[in-house]
């Protein structure tokens, strides 16, 4: 390891703010890149499942009939 202490890692001889902000922004974008399509897929499946239930004409168990 190049650095001697955790503080040195954070500081990076004065460049820490730049390096770390670059990495954190990248992490943010990557997480979004992976998370967004997964969320889209899950939400779509849930939506479709509800649509199928509706079209089958089932009523929720134990619920009173709505008009």
């Amino acid at each position, binding site marked *: 390891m190049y650095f001697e202490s955790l503080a040195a890692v954070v500081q*990076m001889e004065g460049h820490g703010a*730049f390096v770390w902000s670059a990495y954190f922004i*990248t992490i943010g*974008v990557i997480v979004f890149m992976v998370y967004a399509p997964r969320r889209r897929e*899950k939400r779509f499946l849930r939506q*479709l*499942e509800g649509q*199928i239930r509706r079209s089958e004409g089932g009523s929720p168990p134990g619920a009173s009939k709505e008009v």
Partner: protein
Amino acid sequence: MWTLFHKFGSPPWLYRLSGSILRWLLPITVVALVAGSVWGLLFTAPDFRQGNSYRIIYIHVPAAVVALAGYYVMAIAGAVSLIWRMKMADIAMRACAPIGAALTFIALVTGSIWGKPTWGTWWVWDARITSMLILLFLYLGVVALYEAYENKALAAKACAVLSLVGTVNIPIIYKSVDWWYSLHQPASIKFTGGSTIDPSMLYPLLFMILAFYALFTCALLLNMRAEILQREQRTAWVRALAGERGGN
């Protein structure tokens, strides 16, 4: 060969295949990205001129490389979609654009952050940065064109034509921007050329480029899965899948 080709045209097959690929590729990618970053951030010596700020190279360059390659992946998918009218190629092409735009965005932002300690300013009209900016415009153009069409099958064809035009133009744009920069260059700053980079810095960089390729693949497959389901929502297999998931 042809059977494989036809299999790629089959949505449920591709959906299942991508699922089983992602199951191992996604964890590997995450581990590789973390390992490569730690390697680059903590276990390499600083650049003797730029100091520690050069460590941004381990995300900046891979993002830029893969963003550019992504455009070609998109164009190839577009060509396949135009020539063989393969539905899955449409979907792959569509999925490339936002990923490519995100990677280009990473390259631009990290380049800008890197520029501050190195050049003393957030933005320099340097040849590479300008080229990346144009690449971002190209990606966003594809996304905008796709969204503007109501008929998504036609949208994909239109985007395929646009991305093919882009592939012809990208080398021209890059060369001309490069040339333009050398004409106006203030001659005070030079990038460290790829050939002079020290091996101890090069290996983590190559490793990170591979990791970013894996990331691109993962994001591509994830986007394709979401798109496949929406396109195929009336088919029995998607409805069965929805029933399965909803039950859990």
